[in-house]
């Protein structure tokens, strides 16, 4: 990668700002489906608890069929872009996989990358910094890392509700207008 690629249009040094993040399966699936996973690596070092890794690998390991989200995940684990890391103890709400992702973020003071909105208030009450794939798509467009069309496509391809997609696309449209 060219050195210039490490700097965004607003002259922030991405390498210096790279954040550690705990990832849950919903985020991984959507960010791969949206085809913007390559850019996530520029902003985050990703950590995935083994229980979440099992959820991501479920289509291949349990159902036996190849899936893009799984093959990218396995590649990223192999080349160190994703590190399997487990929390020392899981917090006791909801289900074991989600607990692990949130617990890891809590213990290590990581970002939490999650698209599932249901555990959101709990995570927020613990002061976790939380973001999802649609927000990342908007940020990438704002920083000229991806085109407007690419950001729109990424949002369309997620499993978010129609309401959520509409809202995200309205934000993108407005941003495009204001940016000029």
């Amino acid at each position, binding site marked *: 990668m060219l050195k210039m690629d490490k700097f965004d249009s607003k002259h922030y040094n991405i390498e210096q700002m790279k954040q550690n993040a705990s990832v849950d399966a919903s985020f991984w699936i959507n960010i791969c489906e949206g085809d913007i996973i390559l850019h996530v690596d520029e902003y985050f070092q990703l950590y995935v608890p083994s229980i979440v890794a099992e*959820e991501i690998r479920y289509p291949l390991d349990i159902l036996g069929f190849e899936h893009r989200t799984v093959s990218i995940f396995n590649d990223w684990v192999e080349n160190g872009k994703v590190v399997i890391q487990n929390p020392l103890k899981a917090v006791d709400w909801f289900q074991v996989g989600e607990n692990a992702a949130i617990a890891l973020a809590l213990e290590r003071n990581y970002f939490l990358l999650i698209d599932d909105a*249901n555990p959101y208030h709990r995570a927020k009450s613990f002061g976790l910094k939380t973001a999802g794939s649609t927000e990342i798509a908007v940020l990438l467009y704002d920083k000229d890392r991806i085109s407007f069309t690419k950001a729109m496509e990424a949002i369309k391809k997620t499993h978010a509700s129609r309401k959520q997609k509409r809202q995200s696309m309205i934000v993108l449209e407005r941003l495009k207008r204001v940016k000029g």
Partner: protein
Amino acid sequence: MATLITKSIRLEKDENDILKQISQEEGVSEAAILRKFVRQGMSTYRLEQAVAAYTRGEADLSAAARYADVSVYQMMTELKRRDIAPPAETEKFVDGLKILVETFGGSEALRQTIADLEHESR
């Protein structure tokens, strides 16, 4: 081999006729057909329960998927198909954007867009 437990059920005549017909068409025993239908019915029931719990905000994706005995991916696809919007979705989106801008910076245009969004959601 798994232990099988015998259950006896009473059917209406028309239900019995349909069962007999399906059994002949499929070339398998009526008991095997019944077992297949019971399994399918239980799967459907558990999926409906999981979707309902998720919609009410009582379960997260992983819990719902595990209860329904499907993958997280399948659960996400099912929720998308039914266009289920979790209660906290909008708040999560706005907060997520703000946190990303606070952490990585963002244009004045994006900050203005977020401010407008917050103003509208009040």
